[in-house]
């Protein structure tokens, strides 16, 4: 059996059994947060990693999902999860609106347009009473029934997030092997070259963005369901976009398990600094985050995926040698 498959199965097994392996609520909560971060980073990975279009404004879709679920609760008393389809619909519309014109822009221009669009939405949401303006929105204070999906234990969230993550990874895996996967790889290599090969560049960028936006929005809803609160900073702050990019890039942008690996490394790190330094830890977390992506960009833009590949190549080679001897 090959080493990649063993590592994958072992890794997924540990993740699936995590809430049973640790009994401390703190560690169980970290596990659920890892999965949530992995969902949004894997969603970003569809357009940012596979498609090579570095969006720094994905928080717009995350925020749409988070706000939709708490708006349907505060306005109509629906369970927050019922906001998911609305959040996804709004995100798809936004993605089409932002994506169609900006996909003609290449490289940096696209990144900057996404930042500007996200900041625009954040300012508007901070001043609109439907979104709770600067104060934000609250979820159900006490669960009314099972549909509110409001639990004190992180374990149910863990399995909800795991189910969504597995569905997303399965879709990504299918996409990777399909025509679309090859088209996106060509687009990542360069717009012009891809077009000259007959790839419908704009259309496939848009497909990837729609898929990505939909799942990012779902991550936003799941966040709101678990935390029960969203405000402009926690739902639409630029740092959330940045986090998705960093997590995916550290693990390996454009690889299936890269974002999950990135989340497994970074989220516990963030929780640890927050636990050690308290409220002042947020600043230190972002110094560390910034330094990590700076070094990833400078020394190994492929992230952990490339490091892993070179490591396994070496062990594979040495095993081959042993067998020959």
């Amino acid at each position, binding site marked *: 059996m090959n080493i990649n498959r063993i590592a994958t199965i072992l890794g997924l097994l540990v993740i699936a059994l995590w809430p049973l392996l640790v009994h401390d609520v703190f560690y169980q909560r970290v596990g659920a947060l890892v999965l949530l971060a992995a969902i949004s980073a894997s969603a970003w990975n569809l357009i940012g990693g596979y498609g090579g279009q*570095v969006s720094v404004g994905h928080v717009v879709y995350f925020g749409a999902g988070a706000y939709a679920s708490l708006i349907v609760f505060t306005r109509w008393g629906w369970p927050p999860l019922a906001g998911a389809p609305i959040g996804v619909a709004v995100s798809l519309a936004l993605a089409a609106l932002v994506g169609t014109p900006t996909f003609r822009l290449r490289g940096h221009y696209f990144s900057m347009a996404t*930042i500007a669009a996200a900041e625009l939405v954040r300012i*508007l949401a901070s*001043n609109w009473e439907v979104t709770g303006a600067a104060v934000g929105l609250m979820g159900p204070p006490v669960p009314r029934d099972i549909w509110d999906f409001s639990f004190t234990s992180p374990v149910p969230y863990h399995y909800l997030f795991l189910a969504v993550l597995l569905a997303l990874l399965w879709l990504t895996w299918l996409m990777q092997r399909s025509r679309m996967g090859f088209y996106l790889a060509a687009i990542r290599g360069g717009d012009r070259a891809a077009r000259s090969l007959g790839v419908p560049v704009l259309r496939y960028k848009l497909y990837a963005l729609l898929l990505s936006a939909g799942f990012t929005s779902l991550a936003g809803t799941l966040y709101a369901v678990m935390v029960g609160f969203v405000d402009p900073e926690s739902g639409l702050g*630029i740092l959330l976009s940045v986090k998705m990019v960093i997590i995916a890039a550290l693990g390996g942008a454009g690889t299936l398990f890269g974002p999950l690996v990135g989340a497994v490394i970074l989220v516990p790190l963030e929780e640890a600094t927050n636990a050690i330094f308290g409220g002042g830890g947020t600043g230190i977390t972002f110094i560390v985050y910034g330094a990590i992506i*700076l070094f990833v*960009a*400078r020394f190994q*833009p492929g992230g952990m995926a490339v490091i892993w590949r070179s490591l396994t190549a070496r062990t594979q080679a040495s095993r081959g040698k042993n067998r020959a001897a």
Partner: protein
Amino acid sequence: MILLQVVVSGLLMGAVYALFSSGLTLIWGMMNVVNFAHGDFVMLAMYAAFYAFTLWHLGPAFFVPGAAALLFVLGVVVYLGLVRNVARGPMLAQILGTFGLALVLRYSAFWAFSANFVSLPENLVGGTIDISGIRIEASKLLGGAVALAITLGMHLVLTRTMLGSRVLAVAEDRNAAMLMGIRPDRMQALAWGVGAATTGIAGALIALFFYISPTVGESLSLIAFVVVCLGGFGSVPGALIAGLAIGVIQALSAYLIGAVYQDVLVYSLFLAVLWVRPQGLLGKL
């Protein structure tokens, strides 16, 4: 009369925008790499000015050139240590490299200088000047005038001197410039130094009349992007006109609609221009 005063105040702020944006446009035109930390460079210069005054009681005549020198060195170091390498890498690395730098600078500033807003004393550059009914703070007038002079000076150096021609030659075609005996690496390091020095001067000037906080760089970066996109990538005169225009638009929208919406208008304009004319209003792609 008040409207005219708002416009003049916007023009003066716009001149400072034009100054640090022309630094960004120089870097960008030179090697097609964006400095996502540009606004955070401005933030560092603002703190440099603040501490130069509060610790050593140095006036603007000292801390403006001082901040320029400091940021020049930072720009060269960032080029040699980071940008030179990521520029050859994939797009993701180019974006993440300077974005990571921006995060490190911004949150180190949080940690080092605390999140509290600070500002230089208002009367550091004396009082208010009254020109036929239009009242302007002297600090703003000084800041705007110096910024305008330096931006124009930079344009003249780029277009009228041998050194400027060398820089522009590398921006035009790196390999052809190399064949002409120009060292592109040196010119690019110089462009980063000068580009960062403009943020040094601009930051020290804004500090005279603007609040200083660790996160101020975030919106300043976006403003620099807007100005550069409007003016056309690599064009200093374009950055000057666009900077002045953005300053006036911000001042007018803050006055007419409300201060909260001044950036809404600027970002919307930016998106509209990117969609309609991605090469900028004056630029070529």
